[in-house]
């Protein structure tokens, strides 16, 4: 089975501005990848090229082996844009019917019921978009992106308008997509969310890929945090294997040990280090 997404030396220029300066990326089927980067890093441009909304200036992008933007590539993707809107006179069900027709999906009423259930909008199927809250529209957007059983889901800030409960719904949904072998490229500013659900993280900065890897590859050990009767202290440069030795030494020195915890840097710290940003 070909990778869900491959990009090779992908370049996009808008006039004199280079949005992407040669990005190489691969996403395996069923893999959940977080796309991070500061504002203007090229995340949305990358997503838009993959779904055929923007044309690349150079390099190559392939979706399930087909050239990005081609009809077969677009048939394999589901896309939720950062800024999107549905005609406000349509109901949730009618939005899905429209997209089923455009995607030539044969899922029918069963697919619509399944998708509305997945995003927690079962009771809102007859509600018009104009009467929906922003969070409901966002969840409908996720359901729309899943029409036609895509093999690659591109989500551009899918939880930006959601409350904590809505975010949890989307997180659980992403976990379920993993079971369905649907690859996901999740573009989000919410690093904690990415940390919770993604298998791997890709970080872009100034149109270049500056880091890619699993969470434990991007973060580093900060040492051992120990709570004793003398208080809480951090012992740096200590790995998991050295923990018993450190505890033995403390006990031998007459200290009472209450808790021991290996501390790693957070994704936010790794992100800030790699991009040189002050904020995500």
């Amino acid at each position, binding site marked *: 089975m070909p990778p869900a997404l491959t990009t090779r030396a992908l370049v996009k220029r*808008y006039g004199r501005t280079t949005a992407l300066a040669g990005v190489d990326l691969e996403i395996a089927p069923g893999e959940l990848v977080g796309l991070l980067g500061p504002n203007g890093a090229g995340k949305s441009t990358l997503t*838009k090229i993959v*779904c*055929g*909304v*923007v*044309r690349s200036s150079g390099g190559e992008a392939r979706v399930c082996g087909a050239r990005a933007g081609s*009809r*077969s590539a*677009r*048939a394999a*993707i589901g*896309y939720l*844009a950062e*800024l*999107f*809107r*549905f*005609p406000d*006179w349509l109901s949730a069900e009618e939005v899905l019917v*429209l*997209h089923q*027709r*455009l*995607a*030539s999906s044969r899922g029918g009423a069963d697919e619509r019921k399944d998708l509305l259930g997945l995003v927690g909008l079962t009771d809102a199927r007859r509600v018009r978009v104009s009467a929906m809250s922003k969070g409901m529209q966002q969840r409908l*957007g996720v359901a*729309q992106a899943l029409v036609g059983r895509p093999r690659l889901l591109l989500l551009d800030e899918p939880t930006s308008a959601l409350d904590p409960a809505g975010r949890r719904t989307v997180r659980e949904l992403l976990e379920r997509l993993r079971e369905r072998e649907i690859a996901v490229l999740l573009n989000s500013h919410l690093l904690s969310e990415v940390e919770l659900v993604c298998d791997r993280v890709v970080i872009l900065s100034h149109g270049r890929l500056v880091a890619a890897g699993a969470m434990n590859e991007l973060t580093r050990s900060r040492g051992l945090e120990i709570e004793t009767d003398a208080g809480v202290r951090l012992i740096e440069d200590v790995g998991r294997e050295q923990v018993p030795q450190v505890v033995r030494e403390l006990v031998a020195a007459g200290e009472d040990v209450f808790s021991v915890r290996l501390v790693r840097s957070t994704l936010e710290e790794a992100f800030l280090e790699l991009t040189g940003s002050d904020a995500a």
Partner: protein
Amino acid sequence: MNAALVAVYAFRETLRRRVFLAVLVLTTTFIALYWLGARFVFSKTSGFSGNPVVDENVVRGASVFGLALFATYFLGCVLAIFLTLGAIRGEAERGLLQPLVARPVGRSSLIGGRLLAAVLVCVPYVVAVYAIVLAITRHTLHWAPDRQLEPMLALMLAVTIIAALSLLGSVFLAPIANGITVFMLLGIGMVAGLLGQIGVVMKIHSLERIAEASSWIAPFEALYQRSLFALTAETSGVTKTVLSLGPFGGPQAGPSQLWLWSLGYLALVTAAVLAAFARLDL
């Protein structure tokens, strides 16, 4: 198939936006005014020329119906422009277009559907208004144009060209800028047409050449002129001369290849829309 699907949704959106209601009210007002005007013209202008050689009925009928033709053309153009001025850039700015473009539907289907929806509204509108004012003219003024089908066909094609031009503008311009541009284009065409009429009456060849050039550049205006010309195409003599001095001047038949050129122009504009939209980053 996909173009038809997009057309159906664009058509439903038109209904939803209450465009039809506004158009219905305004058109009803226009038709009522026209009927009233035609009745007054008929009852108050008996023997107005004082010249037995002039066919007063033709002068009356052609002048009043010429006004109706202009209104039909103008209202049809307004409808075509407002239905298409924000079709691409406007909808992309609102985030409505991206979810559709990402689907396995050709961009040509999306744009074709939008043009089809606009044409399905504007052309029947022109036909309906033309048929109603023709019926009023026949009944009230007891006059009918020399050629009855040609003016309607010319207006139908003119309005379709305007819709295509507005759609082309919507690829490059924001809705308001596009609306202003297309209306100004329409105005420039009208001015060029009027200059041509003045040129013919006053025998100023340079003005005639301007009008001829405008026929090629803006065939929608030439089609409107052709529709006016067709009203009294078979009329001759003093009556024809009197008509050429009337409020609508001496309308020109335009180039002999006008129909062919207009269809070719429409095809060129449509191809330009398709090419521009295919290259557009959203």
